[in-house]
């Protein structure tokens, strides 16, 4: 398997690379997770939140 060998040599072979990849991945995962949950929440509560109904009550002067 060429692909698995490539991944192994690129990421897993050196522990320093492995650990830093984990930390960077955790950072990216946190951002992505938060964004995804926020999107789901907004779509689930569509039309109920203030930012959805603000236009009905506030006229920009």
């Amino acid at each position: 398997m060429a692909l698995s060998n490539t991944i192994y040599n690129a990421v897993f072979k050196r522990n320093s690379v492995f650990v830093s990849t984990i930390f960077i991945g955790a950072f990216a995962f946190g951002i992505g997770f938060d964004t995804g949950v926020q999107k789901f929440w907004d779509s689930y509560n569509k039309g109920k939140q203030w930012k959805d109904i603000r236009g009905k009550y506030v006229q920009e002067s």
Partner: protein
Amino acid sequence: MASFKALKTAVSLAPTVRALPSGIPHAPLLNLAVRAPHDAHDHGHGVEARSDVAPRWASGPSKVGSQLYSKTFASASPTLNHQQRFMHTSVSVKNANEVPDFSAYRTSNPDGNRALSYFMVGSMGVISASAAKSSISEFLQTMAASADVLALAKVEVDLASIPEGKNVIIKWRGKPVFIRHRTPGEIEEARQTDWKTLRDPESDDARVKKPEWLVMLGVCTHLGCVPIGEAGDYGGWFCPCHGSHYDISGRIRKGPAPLNLEVPAYEFSEADEKLVIG
């Protein structure tokens, strides 16, 4: 003449023996290691010679006098059964050096398995690190000020009500805040000052966001008195407590105060009609 027959039979009972510490009766004449005489294998079909047991005349224990003897004659014929049993339920004994064939259990893809194992370990690490970071940041956010406290900490000022060349003092977080609507002449004066030679060198541009509006905390940097506006030698503020003079940009020019009047965080909103401090 009737013969007399004694009814009484003399029996010599063995003396009571003492026991060894192991609990076995102490019987020095008895050889406990000797094999018991083979019983006649009596199942009702009479005594027959067994092929798997040595006959009595060949070997075996015998009683001579009061002692047991176990004797095996060297010329005794072999008595074991040499017929091989071909039907049995036990596992056939294999050569111990023969290694089983594990090739059926071996993977055909060791590299992929290695990469997958490390990937699973790494994924676990990613999720754990993310959870730890999230826990810590959420915990630290509980120490931050809540939204109502932050809302109370802001003060909104309507700038349209302050004419040019006038001071306004408002209260913000328990402290006075000076707001001065400066005239163009005052702005020019504040800018022309050679601020690099001052005690606390700071340019006028660094102290204001819009030159006509000067916003600063009304607390003297010396000992915390409230300076008086439009007073002092430099046309700015004068602290009556110990005589510190501030210029029209709020910079210390004369007196004991070490620093310029502090500028709070503020911003203009709603088309520059309002000033929000905090």
